[in-house]
């Protein structure tokens, strides 16, 4: 039986620190927390790619990891493929955790890295929930 996969689409969020946290958290899930179950998809490939990304997100569950309330990743998945299995918004999590500043966007500092790890755990937990309920 093949290993079940979940696609994670991270916000590209180049202009803000929460975008960097989204990307680093997604990489932590891919590298450390759920390496066998994770497929990452570049967000712009939904619109300009050859269709592989859209097809993947159509047939496999996807999690949108957005930096801010604009939710570009969620919108892109739903515009080009279908409903997301889960949507995580970093700015909402930071508000919940009482975090006001997460450091520089270019290279996360210690505090930023800690936050990215916490966000990565939220993503992994969402993946487990999806698997529990059968995708």
């Amino acid at each position: 039986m093949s290993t079940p996969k979940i696609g994670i689409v991270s916000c590209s969020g180049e202009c803000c620190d929460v975008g960097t946290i989204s990307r680093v958290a997604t990489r932590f899930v891919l590298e450390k927390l759920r390496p066998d179950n994770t497929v990452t998809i570049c967000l712009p490939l939904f619109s300009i790619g050859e269709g592989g990304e859209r097809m993947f997100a159509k047939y496999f569950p996807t999690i949108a990891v957005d930096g801010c309330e604009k939710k570009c990743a969620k919108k892109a998945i739903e515009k080009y493929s279908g409903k997301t299995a889960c949507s995580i918004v970093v700015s909402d999590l930071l508000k919940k955790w009482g975090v006001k500043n997460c450091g520089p966007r270019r290279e996360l500092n210690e505090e930023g890295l800690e936050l990215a790890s916490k966000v990565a755990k939220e993503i992994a937990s969402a993946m487990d929930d999806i698997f529990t309920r059968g995708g």
Partner: protein
Amino acid sequence: MSDTILIFPCSGIGKSFGTISRDATYSVVEELRKDETDTDCLSLLVVGDEDAGCSVKSHRCISVDGCPNGCAKKTLEDSDAKLVASFRVVDILRKNRKLKPTDVTFLDEDGRKLSKLLAEKIALKVDELNRKGVVS
């Protein structure tokens, strides 16, 4: 400021190229040419954000792509942006074959070297564009 040049890096997180494109972009907009350039989120254009769409039509834009898929360039073209220059990490890599970046989440030494080379090229292009007076 209407003559600010907007630089859009690739969003890729699967290979080191995307990370290099972003690091080089930050280097230009935060250090090398911070008064003349800025960046915005490529994903806003992907989802058709109105403000981002207006912004790329009224400012000169530079795309910085990681791989040959050219997402940043194509997305800017699809948005009818005022695209004045395009760069690709793979082109810089071809000219510097000794450098072999591998780390994605955090750049390794070769990744940093490539980022520096790319950032310098972008900065020179910004100077050239501003000398020519190609303004919005």
